[in-house]
């Protein structure tokens, strides 16, 4: 690991200014994605701006039809939140299966959302629920936020401060975890929302995506059987040593059915 500057500002404004002031500087939240790549010298940021002292970013608020979760909330915090469990049980359950206990104790919602790992779990919930990503300078709808492999609509230096999840009527997340890394080989989030049925798939492609065919089928009948014969083409899916594209395509069908069966 190369030497780097380390800052711990006390305000969002200072944090944003520090990242803007050094080319290549990175925000550091839980460090569960950034630090491993730095240890391997795959990322060599000249400065890290720790978010640990920023006030008010680790709160969870349920307000009417929205669950607002601060960017610095750890996965464990979300998994154990009685408020989240009551409003969107699928979201609490999703958080409880991210990585392992060590990752959940350090990793944050904001870090995961900003990093946009194609195999991360949270993006499925954001897209599946039609969440809103709140930043220091505005808001992004999940539908237009995830652009590609590790690519989002965030501008350079834009800091995620919270995510607002609309409370669905019912939702569920079914994940097929990589045996070694515990990332999602395929994760499917199914939700019945005010705006209709949403099916978001993570782990399988370059970034999280929705399946219009599954949404249409489930709009007609919210049953596992409604998904019979509906496939996601394997052509654009990820392939690696753990799972071929063909197997991932198959798993999408299986996980989607299991999510439908688990809706609550």
């Amino acid at each position, binding site marked *: 690991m190369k030497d780097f500057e380390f800052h711990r500002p006390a305000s969002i404004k200072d944090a944003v200014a520090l990242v803007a002031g050094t080319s290549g500087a990175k925000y550091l939240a839980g460090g569960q994605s950034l630090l491993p790549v730095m240890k391997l010298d795959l990322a060599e940021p000249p400065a890290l701006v720790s978010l640990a002292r920023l006030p008010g970013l680790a709160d969870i608020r349920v307000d009417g039809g929205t669950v607002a979760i601060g960017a610095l909330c750890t996965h464990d915090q979300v998994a154990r939140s009685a408020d989240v469990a009551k409003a969107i049980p699928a979201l609490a359950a999703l958080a409880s299966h991210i990585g392992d206990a060590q990752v959940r104790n350090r990793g944050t919602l904001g870090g995961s959302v900003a990093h946009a790992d194609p195999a991360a779990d949270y993006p499925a919930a954001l897209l599946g629920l039609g969440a809103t990503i709140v930043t220091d300078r505005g808001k992004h709808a999940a539908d237009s936020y995830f652009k590609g492999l590790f690519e989002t609509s965030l501008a350079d230096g834009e800091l995620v401060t919270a995510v607002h999840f609309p409370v669905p009527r019912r939702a569920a997340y079914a994940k097929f975890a990589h045996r070694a890394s515990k990332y999602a080989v395929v994760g499917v989030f199914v939700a019945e929302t005010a705006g209709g049925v949403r099916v978001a798939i993570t782990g399988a492609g370059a970034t999280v995506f929705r399946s219009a065919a599954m949404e249409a089928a489930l709009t007609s009948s919210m049953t596992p059987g409604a998904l019979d014969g509906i496939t996601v083409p394997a052509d654009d899916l990820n392939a690696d040593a*753990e799972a071929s594209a063909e197997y991932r395509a198959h798993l999408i069908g299986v996980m989607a059915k299991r999510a439908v069966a688990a809706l609550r």
Partner: protein
Amino acid sequence: MGNAQGIGAAVKRKEDRRFLVGRGQYTDDVTLPNQSFAVFVRSPYGHAKVNGVDAKAALAAPDVLAVLTGADVAADGLGGIPCGWLVKSKDGSNMVEPPHPALAQGKVRHVGDPVAMVIASTKAAAKAAAALVEVDYEPLPAAGLLANAIAPGAPQVWDEAPGNVCFDWHIGDPATTDAAFAKAAHVVELDLVNNRVAPNPMEPRAANGSFDGANDQYTLYTTSQNPHLTRLLLAAFTLKVPEHKLRVIAPDVGGGFGSKIFHYAEELLVLWASRRVGRPVKWTSDRMEAFLTDAHGRDHISNAKLALDADGKFLGLRVHTYAAMGAYLSTFAPAVPTYLYATLLSGPYDFPAIYAEVKAIFTNTVAVDAYRGAGRPEATYLLERLVEQAARQLGMDRVELRRKNLIRADQFPYQTQVALQYDIGDYQATLDLALAQGDYAGYPARAAASKANGKLRGFGMSTYIEACGIAPSALVGALGARAGLYEAANVRVHPTGSVTVFTGTHSHGQGHETTFAQLIADRLGVSTDQVEVVHGDTDRIPFGMGTYGSRSASVGGSAIVKALDKIVDKGKKIAAHLLEASVADVEFKDGQYRVVGTDRVKAFGEVAFAAYVPHNYPIETVEPGLEESAFYDPKNFTFPGGTHLVEVEIDPETGVVEVASVTIADDVGVIINPMIVDGQAHGGLAQGIGQALLEEAVYDAEGQLTNGTYMGYCMPRAADLPNFKVGNHVTACTHNPLGVKGVGEVGAIGVPPAVINAVLDALAPLGVTDISMPATPEKVWRAIQAARAGKGA
């Protein structure tokens, strides 16, 4: 035995407190005054010419002390890393034994092959400078996979080994085996791959070498399972210095599983570099380096045929195996697929004829050498897959087919057709115990319950044997070992009656500080708290051959017992004097010397005190002091065996295999500490299940290790495993004084075929007949798809 801490007692591990509170002292914890640090520049290619190494920029970097290369190794006359075992081919010729320079000279032959060593006053500086070393590589075609290396026209790892063959060896009688097959009613045949695995001890390898120029004295701290052998090889072959000028210390070692038996180049290089730079030099492997440079295990491709008569009695076995050696021959590598593998092919069965051929093959990969079980898991996997296939093919009950062919208790000692003579066992008893403990009778109900939940349940078993306590020296010498395989012990009774035991075995997780203390408690009647067990330091311990092959209790423990016998005998003479009795009338029991049939006694502590304060003492005939040494060279291997039962549940939609239950019944001989025996069984089972379902070190054709991180290489975790049911049935080993056999490897040996047999049992109704290890979800799913497609067609 009259002592609550003696043999058979579940004494809690004395060593665990320091491990649990983080106060163990591992090699990397040792930082010497004026310490410097080494980082290696390693080949990124599986096979390449090295046209030059330019170290100018690295040498100019801050805090750099030296950059050393293969040319420096050659100029200073360092010896190549030797192989400890010579195997001869069928035609009597010696195996091809290529040179293994400590730093590459002219060519690199696997990813991770060290090319240069950068030494700096901080690790960060060494790492930064290593990135500045420019190596001019000219990539060559590589034989990265065993399957490629044996193909006609394959790239040559060594010019002197045509077809990449290191040796072409055989064992058994081809003529009687041919005759057996000629009269067979049934022949069952399987092609099998035993998957390559990376050892992954929790503590990566490390070495810290220092040279004291004032005294010409070298000291090496290293993560070794056998510091004396490392010293011997350094002194005689690689560093070439007098043995008494070299101290090797293997302090706390965090697991080895075989991978830390061997003498590695880094051990030599840190000592040599320390002499060159005038400062201690420390190297600590990181995890990715460990994947690339620790000797791997297994990696066989085999064809096996079993001949049976019409009643299912085994008539003969014919095996052909290709075994990967890697690019260089590691310390025990040639012994693993020969004397630790093919000699075990009779398993626990009565075989009238066996013939096995083994071709050892060079590959452009890191070396393959002993890994927990070493050869015996490969033999067991082959045999138990074959026996299961026979039961299926012949329509016979899997339990009864085994029962019919197991060696009966009245057949011991049993001479196999592949050199070994089993001294004792009771394979029917362990089979019955396992079936009872595993509620085999209740299996159909469990299978029905799984089916009702949409899962496929399968039952698999293996009946296995292994050879432990590798010895005797004369035999292994005749088989090509270049070292003896005895063990040494020194028992020092202190004046106040406490005891220090010096053992040549090495504990890196086995709990010797407890089990060996129990031997002392048992024999001398002292508390285990009064005993300290010292290992891992060549300056403190007389000699030793280390710990591997489940040899510590049977060989090392026996050496301790021999020394204890001498202590007791000497004490008897002292006690007789104190008790004014004749030696013949004194007995020793429960920590007391007693004049037989009287209440005249001297406690052991009183006798020890008299030995050191010999005021009233038989000084004319008995020397003062109470300290004895012993060497023990066993008459034979020991032969643990047993039955392992596994039930799996498979999710047919995803192919995920869940291990639903594991029940084992082993005969590991006399049990010193049942808790530690259970723990060893658990650890071995975890690794065996890991090999069967999760683990595989995957090289590609170019010799790149494609999954050398924990993001890709799947280690077993607690959540992957059920609670194990472990039972024991004891027959005492006939030829060592403790009656012990060994337990360190049984889990890794017995369970992999039981897991795969269970998977195949679950999938049999769908028409799946074969699956290879590891049985990953996609592999299982594909097998199901292929079987369904085949049925539909």
